[in-house]
């Protein structure tokens, strides 16, 4: 006979389940009777609440930026409200989590008034759904990443293209309406995912047709074909010659700065001439632009100075025996100082590698020192010229005019924007200046970005604003779904009046 017996000290099943939950980081949501148990990083059945790092979070809270008041105290931190009333001096309601009021004839979700420096200001807060939007990406590198206009792909789908290179940088243009909605379904989806990840300060991997594979992230060094780019060059090869010419004088008879764009040759260069340097007779390959400045000395690549060169002597076409001399001291260096080699010509005028003298090594090091850290920077660009304006005023063109006249300030998540001249309200914003998680998306596919319009209350009334919807900022402080963030002091306070 076996006897089953319930032990009196056995833990209850429910208690056991709760203990397991704690181990697994599960949070129980009590927002509704379903009482979802939510695993870390996931949402409950409604998708409105989720488990973020073991805490129950409203997934789309309204973000309010806070800065210290005159007393030096930031009015609220870590969602713990200190009870003081919100004011324009210390709190700014961003569009993040504000939602939209599509169709747009309805007033924007939040039209908030606050007094600052004795002036009653209004901020119209909304989130824009942008089909016309994209990212302009600046990648600090001289390395060849792909030909201009080459398609840029994520997961095999084209999400943008290589655009005009800028000083020390390669540029990408990503997204835009054609990839978001003009191509195939998957193209639109992948484009949207890529933009969203980059705009929210995440890393993405891209490949360029006929070019490199990149891993980029706003504010981080780009990784090109698996190699992390450390430095942005001090200038082109010719500029490097100009900057450091005097420091080479007396220590080298010739300096060649290898650069995919403009390779500089010291004694032939204007800078060498000024210093009365003797022509060394070393002729480099490529096309001479002006004396001492050469284009296309090699092919673009990931070697010396953004060329495909690994042996610098390969760019020397010939050495003129009438001008060169045995014992001539030659420095070859890249635009970032990452590559450098020292040679002395032998009796047959052949460059022979030799130990680099300390004085030259010091200048090479200085070239490197003058290079800034290579970064990827990401600007979000979008046009808010459309129906979104109707959420601000019944007569949308007045908003555009007011923005043009600088009466209305446009911010994106509180961050300053660069407004394009011309029609509409087309702007660019540095995603690093915006709060984390500023961007969302809708399945259209399109990006959702915060946008705020701030102007004096009197001007808002005059423009035909939705005055019946204006509410004081303090009225928001009782909401349960507010996420406060601390304002970066380095950034202009969005409510402050611009310096006249």
């Amino acid at each position, binding site marked *: 006979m076996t006897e089953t017996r319930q032990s009196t000290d056995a833990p209850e099943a429910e208690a056991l389940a709760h203990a397991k939950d704690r181990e697994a980081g599960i949070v129980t949501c009590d927002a509704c009777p379903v009482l979802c148990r939510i695993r870390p990083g996931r949402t409950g059945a*409604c998708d409105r609440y989720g488990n973020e790092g073991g805490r129950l979070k409203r997934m789309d809270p309204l973000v309010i930026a806070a800065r210290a008041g005159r007393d030096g105290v930031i009015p609220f931190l870590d969602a713990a409200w200190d009870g003081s009333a919100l004011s324009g001096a210390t709190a700014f309601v961003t569009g993040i989590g504000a939602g939209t009021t599509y169709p747009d004839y309805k007033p924007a979700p939040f039209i908030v008034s606050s007094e600052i420096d004795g002036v009653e200001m209004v901020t119209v807060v909304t989130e824009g759904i942008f089909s016309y939007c994209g990212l302009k990406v600046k990648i600090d590198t001289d390395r060849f990443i792909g030909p201009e206009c080459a398609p840029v792909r994520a997961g095999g789908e084209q999400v943008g293209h290589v655009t005009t290179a800028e000083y020390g940088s390669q540029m990408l243009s990503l997204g835009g309406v054609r990839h978001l909605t003009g191509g195939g379904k*998957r193209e639109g989806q992948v484009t949207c995912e890529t933009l969203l990840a980059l705009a929210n300060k995440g890393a993405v991997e891209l490949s360029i047709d006929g070019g490199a594979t990149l891993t980029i992230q706003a504010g981080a060094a780009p990784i090109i074909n698996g190699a992390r780019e450390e430095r942005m060059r001090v200038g082109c090869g010719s500029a490097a010659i100009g900057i450091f010419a005097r420091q080479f004088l007396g220590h080298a008879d010739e300096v060649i700065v290898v650069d995919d764009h403009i390779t500089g040759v010291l004694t032939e260069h204007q800078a060498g001439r000024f210093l009365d340097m003797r022509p060394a007779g070393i002729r480099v390959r490529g096309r001479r632009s002006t004396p001492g400045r050469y284009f296309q000395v090699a092919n673009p690549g990931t070697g010396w100075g953004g060329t495909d060169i690994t042996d610098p002597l390969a760019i020397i076409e010939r050495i003129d025996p009438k001008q060169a001399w045995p014992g001539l001291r030659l420095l070859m260096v890249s635009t970032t100082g990452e590559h450098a080699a020292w040679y002395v010509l032998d009796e047959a005028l052949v460059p022979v590698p030799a130990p680099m003298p300390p004085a030259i090594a010091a200048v090479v090091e200085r070239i490197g020192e003058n290079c800034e850290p290579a970064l990827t920077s990401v600007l979000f660009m979008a046009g808010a010229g459309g129906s979104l304006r109707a959420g601000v005023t019944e007569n949308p063109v007045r908003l555009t005019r007011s923005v043009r006249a600088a009466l209305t300030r446009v911010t994106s998540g509180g961050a300053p924007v660069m407004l394009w001249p011309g029609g509409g309200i087309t702007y660019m914003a540095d995603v690093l200046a915006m709060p984390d998680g500023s961007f969302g998306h809708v399945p259209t596919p399109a990006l959702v970005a915060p946008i705020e319009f701030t102007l004096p209350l009197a001007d808002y009334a005059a423009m035909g604003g939705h005055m019946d919807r204006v509410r004081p900022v303090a009225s928001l402080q009782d909401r349960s779904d507010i996420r406060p963030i601390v304002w970066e002091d380095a950034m202009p306070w969005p409510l402050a009046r611009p310096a006249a």
Partner: protein
Amino acid sequence: MSALAAMLPGGRLHLQHGPIDAIVQAWGDAAEVRRAQAQAAAAFGDVLPRLCAELPRLRAPLPAPPPEGPVARRMHAACLPFADCFITPMAAVAGAVADHLLAAALAGRRLERALVNDGGDIAVFLAPGQSFRCGIVADLAAPCLDAVAMLGAGAGVGGIATSGRLCRGQGGRSFSLGIADAVTVLAADAAAADAAATMIANAVDLPGHPAIERRPASALDPDSDLGDRLVTWQVGALTEAESEAALAAGARVAEGFAARGLIRAAILHFRGRRRVVGAVPLLSAA
């Protein structure tokens, strides 16, 4: 947080409580429409609490003894015919809520048309001579009207439901054992359509295919009625023939349901392909 009822533009009543988002719309005499919507709103208040009170039972596989609540009983009844495979009453929860709210709206009212749309699972009422045009979107991530069905009174269709593979947190509302982009089912009521769409979407599958990434449902949601069963997480590249085979597997199951009289019709979408089972008056095709 308690149940919310709000009027949206266009005379649509929005009912929301926890994970339930339903739109109630009716056409006919204005006073009758108002009363119908008021009745639906009044019936809504205890829908979620009563479901939650029986959740463990509703998450248990069928066959099982019937539950207590009116919505729970609709779920149970709708899923029971499919109990030869794994199914729990939760497979019909959205459709059953829609049916329940529609029944509440219709009680004692004279309407021309009415519908309750609970997150895409729709209960419809059509008085004689009335009709609905129904747009079908196969891919929510890139929505376009993939088909338009014409629903007429007397066709025996009181419910339309759609099921697909998109996971909760990835654009979908639930978990699927299959890989279908969308399976839309027309049936006598929304609960039946909901249960059938779930089962057909589960059947659109390529068991054991390496390009299909699956995860235990419990790893995503510890309380899922699917327990440790593997649900579809991501679907990678498939050949044309494989896509066709997956769709055909689902279509065979749908044909069986139609032959048993459980559904009127089904429209299956996968990777740009479509299969139609039964008689659907499709007006246009993408």
